[in-house]
């Protein structure tokens, strides 16, 4: 029996972590994540979990301790945001390179400078090519559900990779929503026991982690890392199927909202997808065929599936809550463009940067973008391929 509760995103993810009851957790405060690990520390203090917590002196040490703990042979978690994730950057690659299934919620927040504690996606985008799996969540329910599924995905014997679960800072982490908690026992059975692979603590079978590998073998090693990455989408779908059995909720690689017969569409991550869907309904009521694609598995990116889902549209706008500062487009746009490239007939593609540093994304923003897409379809002309919206010029 599901429990219906009114909770914040941080509270729900902390609850999922409690239900999973990991062996080790490393924690360091940073807004807006702080409250999640604080709650978890409370569970430790109250004996609600068996977890040993390491209250590290930095996020660099947090990820380092997670690496040591995971290689030792057990289930390991931490959580962070923004500068904390940036400070971990070096260690992110080492965690994935050593194939350690560490699970880390990232409460998305803008990156300095200037200092800003509010939600945008620049933190996780900076880590998107670090060899971690990334699951993105629109709301508190999805953040909770993704957290539970992340363990099954990362710890899968064909995968053994770390997983980041993204949820929007403040908008989701600190807002109360009605969600359903799954029974503890169902979560526990779903996630199962941790299976250690080459644990350091097995002193009878000593192993060396983290060798030097020079040009003679480095490339084979990297290729070997790409292989489990390629298997992730299938595992994500299999896990989602099992998850549906205990939750009744369906998950895919992405959500396709009214996309099948759509002519214009938005691609957007996380919480802003919710706002956008309402506006799409309004456009549908006016007889305009609008739809939306919300990526869930963002790394590895399911290029073929996303391309297939979007290729029939006439015009698509990718909304990015981070800029890539490469003199080009936002990060999600670049991925969508790549997924549509194989098709001869493909939609017009434009890019809007929105909501940086917690700037509100309003229904009128979505409406303006959809109007612009309709205009592009009508005229066959694109005025601007990329621009900032909801900004003072």
């Amino acid at each position, binding site marked *: 029996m599901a429990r219906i509760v009114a909770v914040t995103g941080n509270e729900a993810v902390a609850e999922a972590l409690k239900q999973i009851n990991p*062996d080790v957790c490393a924690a360091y405060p940073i807004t807006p994540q702080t409250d999640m690990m604080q709650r978890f520390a409370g569970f430790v203090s109250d004996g609600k979990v068996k977890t040993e917590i390491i209250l590290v002196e930095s996020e660099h*040490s947090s990820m380092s*301790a997670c690496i*040591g703990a995971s290689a030792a042979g057990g289930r390991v978690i931490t959580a962070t945001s923004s500068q904390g994730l940036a400070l971990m950057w070096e260690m992110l690659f*080492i965690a994935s390179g050593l194939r350690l299934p560490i699970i880390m919620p990232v409460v998305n927040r803008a990156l300095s400078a200037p200092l800003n504690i509010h939600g945008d996606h620049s933190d996780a985008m900076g880590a998107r090519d670090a060899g971690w799996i990334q699951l993105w969540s629109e709301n508190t329910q999805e953040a909770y559900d993704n957290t539970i599924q992340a363990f099954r995905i990362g710890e899968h014997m064909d995968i053994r990779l770390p997983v980041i679960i993204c949820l929007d800072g403040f908008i989701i982490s600190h807002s109360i929503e009605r969600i359903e908690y799954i029974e503890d026992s169902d979560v526990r059975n779903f996630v199962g026991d941790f299976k250690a692979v080459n644990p350091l603590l097995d002193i009878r079978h000593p192993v*060396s982690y983290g060798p030097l590998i020079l040009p003679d073998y480095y490339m084979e090693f990297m290729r070997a890392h790409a292989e489990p990455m390629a298997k992730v989408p299938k595992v994500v779908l299999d896990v989602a199927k099992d998850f549906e059995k205990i939750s009744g909720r369906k998950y895919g690689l992405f959500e396709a909202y009214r996309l099948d017969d759509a002519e214009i569409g938005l691609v957007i991550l996380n919480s802003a997808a919710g706002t956008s869907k309402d506006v799409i309904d309004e456009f549908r009521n006016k007889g305009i065929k609008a739809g939306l694609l919300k990526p869930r598995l963002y790394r590895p990116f399911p290029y073929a599936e996303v391309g297939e889902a979007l290729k029939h549209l006439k015009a698509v706008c990718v909304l990015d809550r981070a800029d890539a500062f490469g003199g080009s487009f936002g990060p999600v746009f670049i991925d969508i463009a790549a997924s549509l490239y194989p098709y001869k007939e493909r939609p017009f593609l434009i890019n809007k940067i929105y909501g940086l540093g917690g700037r509100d994304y309003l229904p009128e923003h979505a409406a303006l973008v959809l109007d612009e897409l309709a205009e592009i379809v009508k005229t066959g002309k694109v005025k601007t391929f990329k621009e900032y919206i909801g900004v003072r010029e």
Partner: protein
Amino acid sequence: MATPLSLKELSKKEILFTPGHRMCAGCGAPIIVKMVLLAADYPVIASNATGCLEVSTCISDYTAWKIPWIHSAFENAAATISGVETMYRSLKKQGKINDEIKFISFGGDGGTYDIGFQSLSGAMERGHDMLYICYDNGAYMNTGIQRSSATPFGADTTTCPAGDVIPGKMQQRKDLTKIMAAHNIPYAAQASPSHWGDLMKKVRKALEIKGPKFMNVIAPCNRGWRSKTDDAITLSRLAVETCCWPLYEIENGNTKITFKPREKKPLVDFLKPQGRFKHLFTPENEWLLKEAQEQVDKNWERLLAEEACFAPKETKEKASKEQ
């Protein structure tokens, strides 16, 4: 039962750090590692900071380590082992593991005094049951002999080269052993491979103590010191006998000097055989030698005073009677 620390008994023990690794001939670091692992009468799991020891002992598909070993990065050997140790406590608490295991971190001076200082300080403060061993060769050797905060005053390195205007490193070494002791950890010590019995006794003592321990071990590097390949033990002995690398331990706040040379040798005895100090032996740089000697004298005097001040009551009384 503990293996007696005699050569006869120790020679019967399995060497858990194999020959065939790729450290330079005559390097001090592998000698130290061998002594440490020989001294341990428990299963040991080690972490290793990036540096000479790490890059030369585990080059895929080979490893010189017959114990479980992990290298993750340069600045985080302490944080990494703190994670391993925490998982150990967690699984032990859950009854999933029964072995009595000890945890040791190895880091070079760069990885310990400098870039890994925060991670080390944090792990010590948190109280993990671990022993951190710094092998101090006085520079970033792996990247080609750059200055670290452990580089001795006056030394010539590739980033503080003895030039026409600046005659080598112009700062004193950071006194890391004292800084670690100031964390109020139960055990901090300095050792040298020349005094192997002392070194191994300290490792043994450290491993018997619960909580965070730190050892700083001088590790001659013939490449960086520009000394003879067979001089590692001689030079580390001279460092001890000139009192520029005193052997002592600080146990629960009490300082004890574990070796006092009968006759304190002049510092130049240690400096002269090393190419990195060659420029000091010119008339215009005589003041540097003088200053270096003064620093050693001052630090030694202070250490003696600390020992006297913290000595247990009976020894103090005995000492005052003898006077």
